[in-house]
């Protein structure tokens, strides 16, 4: 799922500079903000190029996000996002064939400020040759207790149409006319942002998500033992439950260090009705240096247990009512190290564009599976004895931001 929109942190919308004059302006802004009630996001445009490379998959494309205020109370946003996918992943090699495709996503959003309340609505549409998704969302945000606390309640609804591509005798990919499925999604969220001290702010998020419909990947297969045949296993279709409900709760604590730097600690707990239990922990450090540079570093640790109906190798065909071998449902640990740099500059000769930035970010991802084996090596090691699969991937982002 592609995420859009942004978290609503309290009192973080006014820009700050290092010069004493701007610091004074910022302080005045912070003092004036409570009197004005809530604050709308700044007018801003971002143009990003992203590249993911790992596990014989390359995904790249642009993302353009523009946000503009209309009057004093309304802020509109629009996003165009594209994934150009070239995949010959381990799953594709085992049960399908390498492919290239493009996913395009567009979204529109509006935030309306009324006193200390902000009302947000939006619509997201995503299209790829074999998957079409529409999502709408609504959220209400309220500043309270002297603007030290911001509470947000959100609801979202999604409607997906799932297809499966097949190759015609002429070698052209097209939707299988016998396969057309649907999936519906609903989400309910509660967020809280709380200023703790003059240097610390706490964020809490809870989200309940429910899905109904076709929730499997139609291309991936399970495998079951079949001694004496081929590599010792046979492939068969996955069978997923038609419903899923998940609960996720996260805490974020951000602290302003005495020498103008920020330290963030995050933890998320997740569990769902498929039996997946997951923990995510992350530490981020932001350090401005000189006058125009900001450097970021992050460490992320993720761990999950397998879904109840997941197995790398089932003992026989039709072993149980639900069967899956999607590695997203396997047990694994994941480690991510990230670093970023941002250079802020003023557009020469254009006074209205006094704040702009060029940003670069690199993340290295290592996924260590506990029960997902490299089935492509079954003929060498024997089915069920192959080495465990590991995924190494790099994620690159380059983007330009303009405040106007």
């Amino acid at each position: 799922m592609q995420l859009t929109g942004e978290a609503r942190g309290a009192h973080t919308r006014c820009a700050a500079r290092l010069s004493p004059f701007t610091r004074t302006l910022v302080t005045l802004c912070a003092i004036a903000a409570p009197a004005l009630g809530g604050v709308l996001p700044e007018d801003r445009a971002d143009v990003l190029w992203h590249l993911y490379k790992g596990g014989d998959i390359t995904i790249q494309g642009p993302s353009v996000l523009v946000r503009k205020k209309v009057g004093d109370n309304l802020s509109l946003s629009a996003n165009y996002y594209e994934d150009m996918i070239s995949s010959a992943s381990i799953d594709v090699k085992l049960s399908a064939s390498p492919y290239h495709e493009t996913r395009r996503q567009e979204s529109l959003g509006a935030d309306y400020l009324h006193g200390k309340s902000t009302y947000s609505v939006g619509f997201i549409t995503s299209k790829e040759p074999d998957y079409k998704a529409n999502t709408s969302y609504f959220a209400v945000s309220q500043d309270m207790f002297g603007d030290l606390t911001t509470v947000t309640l959100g609801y979202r609804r999604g409607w997906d149409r799932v297809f499966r591509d097949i190759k015609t005798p002429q070698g052209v990919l097209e939707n299988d006319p016998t396969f057309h499925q649907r999936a519906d999604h609903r989400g309910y969220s509660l967020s809280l942002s709380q200023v703790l001290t003059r240097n610390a702010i706490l964020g809490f998020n809870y989200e309940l998500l429910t899905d109904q419909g076709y929730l499997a990947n139609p291309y991936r297969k399970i495998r079951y033992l079949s001694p004496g045949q081929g590599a010792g296993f046979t492939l068969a279709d996955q069978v997923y439950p038609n419903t899923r409900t998940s609960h996720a709760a996260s805490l974020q604590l951000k602290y302003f260090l005495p020498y103008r730097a920020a330290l963030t600690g995050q933890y998320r707990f997740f569990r769902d009705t498929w039996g997946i239990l997951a923990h995510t922990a992350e530490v981020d450090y932001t350090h401005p240096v000189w006058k125009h540079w900001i450097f970021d570093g992050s460490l992320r640790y993720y761990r999950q247990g397998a879904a109840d109906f997941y197995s790398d190798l089932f003992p026989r065909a039709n072993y149980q009512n639900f069967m899956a071998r999607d590695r997203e449902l396997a047990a694994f640990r994941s480690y991510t190290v990230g670093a970023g740099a941002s250079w802020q500059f003023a557009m020469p000769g254009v006074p209205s564009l006094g704040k702009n930035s060029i940003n670069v970010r690199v993340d290295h991802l290592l996924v260590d599976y506990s029960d997902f084996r490299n089935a492509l090596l079954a003929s060498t090691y024997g089915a069920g004895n192959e080495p465990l699969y590991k995924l190494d991937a790099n994620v690159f982002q380059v983007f330009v931001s303009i405040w106007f």
Partner: protein
Amino acid sequence: MRVAPGLPSVSLTVKLMRELTAVLLLAALAGCAAPTPWVKPYEREHFADPIMSFNRDPVSSTYLQHVFETREGARGATGSVGGGCGCN
């Protein structure tokens, strides 16, 4: 009136209940009143600094969330709204 050793007398129990009721009432009244902000507006300069934003660059953080969400079983509670798939 005889009282079993170690047990409070009836009058003592009533007294305790009255005190407890008073404490609960006071707590309820205190809950109705808006708390005084303990961080004054002029002390919030650091929260106006962009480095203190939970989501300084939405275009970047949403992309990275997408990368994780399509490769992991967990989802949600990121403070953002999602849509679409890109999972096949």
